[in-house]
């Protein structure tokens, strides 16, 4: 039949939608997708959310998540059409020939069982090895994946290891039954860049050592460029482009692929000088009832109509800094000044005008808007509240704001659930702008969005800055975003600012150790970046 390990021919996947108040109807999620994976090769599936990449990945195990049905085409694993395999055949296939690594390891493990039990469970279930053999294999996989104390880490519970380690343990779980094919579904998306690079290197090495084939699903082309041999680009359930990694990265032929490759190429010239509109003076803060300072002696200035980016990994205290500035968490010492005057530490003590001047945009636009209010109400409320606009004057201003965020007419009466992810974030921006603030705090505003959509939001923010003279305090973990929009940068690590200055200055050597680690961990869209970086680090470690 077929010499390939996995061959998918003309796959069609459907689901039933249940729009409220209407008759259910069938929608096509994936159509006309065909590809092959040879033994020992890695195929990257790339696309935005909703492109059908996870759905296609799971179809290689003949599984449809949440009522999704595979309605057409053929899927061959080792020459057998698994869509015709029947329940017994599928049980033999899943967890033995094909295994799966999920995106969120923290949610995929049973918190009440030890790691070892879960890693060897399927292997024992399929009767592939004795318990002793399986445990031995698991320990050797732990060692190969670079986990600390491989002999004893299996005795821990999922909450006793870090997120990056858990992701590697799940990879070990997938590799334990010696599968022919592993499906990786966004295995590093939830991790910090500094952790991501370790997990990525571990996965790549494990794939090479065990000779297993893999499907690697991600939305980040720079990541997949490091591990894949071939790439399949998907959009809206259709194949856009399929080729070798070299072809896709260096000479993509489709416009959509070209856009993906060249994303984040915004050129922003750094501004400097200018009087600070917002200053953080020697702020130390801790959460109530704890003895640990989350922020330690932070001092920063945000000049008028400029962007200060706060960079750091999760737990570095960057979101806490936003809470201190907005007055949600009064600092234990230090102060916040705005336009030269000291702001009260607690937001309840601030005047309405103080509150108006500092607005906030959140990471998750979904929960930042009341789902029971229309777009008109959401944007209109600050107008009514701060400027007393009512009736037609308010309506007109809401429309002006909608035009400014490039959404135009017809959205005023919609509810947030009727908007796309990018549109939701735009509405949040409009709500912040409606208050005519001097400062907007942007807390990871693009990290929940697809790269192309995020790009659009960043361009809009830069555009608005020019027109409205608003300053941004831009909190992010993504250095590419920082390069695109910042004027000055503060790098935070464990509650301290470890590096602070103009963009070019911060991003140029000589680096401190942490900034160096952070910068070198950001995947670049070129082949061989991962090996080079790992090799550099090993050399540096050997030199010390």
């Amino acid at each position, binding site marked *: 039949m077929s010499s390939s390990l996995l061959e998918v021919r003309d796959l069609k996947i459907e689901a039933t939608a249940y729009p409220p*108040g209407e008759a259910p109807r069938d929608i096509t999620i994936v159509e006309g997708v065909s590809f092959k994976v040879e033994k020992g090769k890695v195929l990257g599936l790339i696309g935005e959310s909703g492109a059908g990449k996870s759905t296609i990945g799971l179809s290689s195990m003949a599984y449809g998540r949440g009522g999704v049905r595979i309605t057409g085409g053929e899927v061959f694993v080792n020459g057998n059409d698994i869509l015709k395999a029947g329940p017994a055949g599928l049980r033999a296939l899943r967890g033995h020939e094909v295994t799966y690594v999920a995106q969120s390891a923290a949610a995929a493990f049973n918190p009440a069982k030890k790691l070892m039990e879960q890693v060897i469970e399927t292997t024992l279930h399929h009767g592939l090895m004795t318990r002793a053999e399986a445990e031995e294999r698991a320990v050797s996989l732990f060692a190969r994946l670079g986990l600390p104390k491989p002999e004893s880490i299996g005795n821990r519970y999922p909450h006793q290891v870090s997120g990056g380690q858990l992701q590697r343990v799940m990879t070990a779980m997938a590799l334990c039954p010696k599968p022919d094919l592993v499906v990786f579904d966004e295995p590093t998306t939830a991790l910090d860049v500094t952790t991501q690079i370790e997990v990525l290197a571990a996965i790549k090495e494990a794939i090479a050592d065990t000779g297993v084939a893999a499907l690697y699903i991600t939305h980040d082309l720079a990541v997949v460029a490091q591990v894949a041999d071939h790439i399949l680009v998907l959009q809206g359930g259709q194949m856009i482009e399929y080729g070798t990694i070299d072809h896709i990265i260096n000479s993509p032929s489709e416009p959509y692929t070209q856009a993906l490759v060249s994303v984040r190429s915004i050129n922003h010239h750094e501004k400097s000088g200018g009087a600070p509109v917002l200053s953080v003076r020697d702020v130390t803060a801790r959460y109530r009832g704890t003895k640990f300072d989350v922020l330690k002696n932070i001092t920063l200035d945000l000049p008028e109509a400029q962007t200060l980016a706060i960079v750091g990994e999760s737990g570095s205290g960057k979101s806490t800094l936003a809470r201190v500035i907005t007055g949600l968490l009064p600092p234990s010492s230090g102060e916040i000044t705005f336009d030269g005057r000291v702001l009260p530490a607690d937001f309840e003590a601030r005047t309405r005008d103080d509150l108006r001047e500092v607005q906030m945009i959140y990471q998750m636009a979904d929960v930042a808007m*009341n789902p029971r*209010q229309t777009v008109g109400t959401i944007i209109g409320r600050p107008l009514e509240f701060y400027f007393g606009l009512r009736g037609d004057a308010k309506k007109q201003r809401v429309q002006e704001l909608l035009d400014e965020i490039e959404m135009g007419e017809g959205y005023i009466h919609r509810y947030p659930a009727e908007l796309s992810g990018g549109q939701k974030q735009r509405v949040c921006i409009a709500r912040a702008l409606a208050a005519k603030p001097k400062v907007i705090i942007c807390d990871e505003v693009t990290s929940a969005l697809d790269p192309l959509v995020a790009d659009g939001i960043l361009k809009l923010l830069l555009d608005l800055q020019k027109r409205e003279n608003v300053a941004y305090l831009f909190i992010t973990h993504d250095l590419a975003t920082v390069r695109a929009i910042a004027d000055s940068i503060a790098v935070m690590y464990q509650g301290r600012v470890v590096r602070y200055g103009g963009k070019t200055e911060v991003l140029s050597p000589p680096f401190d150790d942490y900034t160096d680690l952070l910068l070198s961990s950001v995947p670049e869209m070129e082949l061989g970046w991962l090996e080079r970086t790992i090799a550099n680090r090993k050399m540096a470690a050997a030199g010390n």
Partner: protein
Amino acid sequence: MTRIPLAALIGLFFTGLYFGAAVFAGWIAPYGMAEIVGDSWEPASAAHWLGTDSIGRDLLSRMIWGGQTTIFVAAAATMLSFGMGSILGFFAAVKGGWVDQLLSRLVDLMMSIPSLISALVVLSVLPVSLPVLIIVMGVLDSTRVFRLSRAVAVDITVMDYVEAARLRGEKQLWIIFREILPNALSPLVAEMGLRFIFAVLFISTLSFLGLGVQPPLADWGGIVKENKEGIVYGISAALIPAFAIASLAISVNLVADWVLNRTTSLKGGRG
């Protein structure tokens, strides 16, 4: 108008029937509420569709008049308990800290005494009139509503949109009524269907024990009490109110489920 599911139609029909009968009792009931029209426990006949009760009053008329009292008291008590319980619950959730502690512990204290016992104690001291009954039942029931609405609101107050409203400088009233209430409505509506039925059972229980609606005013619990001796002689008069309560309970909840389904959609055009 979208299609109404069959279950909701059945629920709407019977709920409408009971409420309609209660509102228009004066026109519908064939005889007066306390009018003696025949012998005791006459069997059903063309003149008396459900027969007569222990002292010869028309049972159908008693049921209709009794339904009016029972449904009116239960509905008023439910409204009181939801008004009080949900607003205090939201307030406790929004304020947090000692306000929350004080209100929650007070509610725990009230809930630690079985509500029937506290109602019996209070009603044996106070004069038993309809307003007193409604207030006692409403206040006792509001503790349950308080706990539900507080639990629902605590999850909502941590959402970013509530934080955004706070940072805008909004007052507590706006946050409670505009940010939290619309999002907490679905579980509250579901609970309201259930609570109304509990109120019907509660007032019937009190009347059966003689501390609820006082004779000659009719109510369903009272009708059971007046006719309970008949069961020994194979007379089913006491079972009729029980059937009425059961069918009302089911139909009200069918309607509540339907309303719940319609209000959980976050997209436009609800209602």
